[in-house]
């Protein structure tokens, strides 16, 4: 009996859940962003003032395992449009030429599939082709964006945004497990100067949508575990 108990204890001491769980990648994207409406145009401390709008659009560059079996990037164009993002907080630190912007909840992000009309950015959006050629076709996935934060370092001309997106619409919504439709992280880079940026757009952006993996756990012995509570 004592031996069995010792064996059980030994077995339990080496049991551990995987020490690492990867984030799940949904898709990657690249495109441009712009302010709309933008009643106070101008650089640095006038960028994204309270009440101004932020929009981003472009192409989806890759799909993760959830959606890859249901898309055909050879014949279709996949585009995205992030909108309804209104600046709620604006903190500019002139000593660092550093800006931190928070957006009101919720914004919205949508992804489209289109086999006919090429998406064209044009200049000074909104224009005749943007966002219209980015939001035609089939809505494959959409969701509301929350807690979006954008930081921009005007010294380095480099910044980024991060927020959450919760999926609730689209023809491919069913391909995402119901329990995993909330809590995706939407993040990207926004940078300049860049000769590829069409006039009227602010930054070229590049990013991805991922959902954090399960909470990681580490290997521990019972002794180490008990020591935490002594």
């Amino acid at each position, binding site marked *: 009996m004592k031996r069995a108990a010792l064996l059980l204890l030994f077995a339990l001491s080496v049991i551990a859940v995987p020490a690492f769980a990867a984030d799940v990648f949904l898709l990657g994207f690249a495109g441009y962003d712009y302010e709309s409406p933008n009643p106070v145009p101008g650089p640095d401390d006038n960028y994204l003032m309270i009440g101004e709008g932020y929009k981003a659009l472009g192409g989806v560059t890759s799909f993760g395992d959830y959606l890859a079996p249901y898309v055909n990037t050879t014949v279709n164009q996949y585009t995205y449009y992030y909108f309804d993002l209104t600046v709620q907080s604006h903190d500019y630190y002139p000593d660092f030429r550093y800006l931190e912007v928070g957006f009101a909840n919720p914004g919205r992000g949508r992804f489209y599939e289109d086999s006919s009309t090429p998406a064209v950015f044009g200049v000074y959006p909104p224009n005749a082709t943007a966002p219209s050629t980015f939001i035609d076709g089939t809505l494959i996935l959409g969701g509301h964006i929350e807690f979006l*934060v954008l930081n921009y370092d005007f010294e*380095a001309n480099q910044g980024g945004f991060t927020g959450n997106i919760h999926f609730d619409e689209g023809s491919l919504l069913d391909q995402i497990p119901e329990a995993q439709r909330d809590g995706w992280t939407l993040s990207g880079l926004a940078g300049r100067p860049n000769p590829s940026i069409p006039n009227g757009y602010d930054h*070229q952006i590049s990013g991805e949508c991922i959902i954090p993996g399960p909470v990681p756990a580490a290997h521990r012995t019972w002794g180490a575990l008990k020591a935490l509570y002594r």
Partner: protein
Amino acid sequence: MKNRIGLVTVIGLLATTLSATVAAAQCSTPPDPPGLMIKFDRDAWAYETAYTPANFKSALGSQLTVVGIVSWFCNPFSDLNPADPNTEYTFIWDGLVSEETITQTIGSFGAMKYTTRYLGGGFRIYAGSPRNAPTVTPPDLPSGVVPDAFVDGTMILGGVMDTVLVIVNRSSGGIYTSSFKAHYQATGGTRYCQVGSARTLMDGLWCPVPPTSPSPTGTCPLPTGWSAHPNGKWDTPNPLPPPTGACCLRANPGACVITTPADCVVQDGVFLGLCTVCDFGICLEVPANKTSWGQLKTIYR
């Protein structure tokens, strides 16, 4: 024979044009200016020789390496298919030496900025077969497949990078927004002639491993030894150099010039393919003598 070479060339160019038309659907469409040239998304990871995740600190002299798999090609590489089941397009950045991370507190609400410059690096992009690089989750480091599985095959493009600037921002609300930026100049590779040596932007998202558990939003947990997950791109040089290759001139047997496919036709030449070079004798025909089967057989008796 020359006619066959010409036919093959025409078919090759046609195939290139057709595949470019299809693949370009996801790329910038004229009249838009050219944007991204090469994109990497899920499968890219960074590691360093002296990095501390708890404070995003890269020590002075730490060497940064980034490995990954290409997820998208645009002009001038629209003919390449990153999802080709038989060919894997991988890359490495190496030789990047840290100048040490500078940490700054922004304001009084907990915002932080961690800035690191890495100098002296280069990049190489490979086409390799079979697909053997790890995907989704990289292995713990050190690993027998890192970086080897990312540097096998033929180098299609390589070059130098100026300062790689990595900025990790922590907002006052504890959310991380991080990025990298550099400029590259191509210097070699089988597709170098399509890119040229113009200094061009490469940048993207930089998702550092979390300093704490549970992971704050905007950080990426990775297996042992990795420091960050980048997601970014090489932009297309603007303007691109004209696509050129070796052209054998019919009027001057043996003569070879580097020119565009269209100009080669104008010169009544045979175009040998994009980025081919005028190696010695490439345009010389192998000499042949008329003979009979009987005479041929006697050579081997």
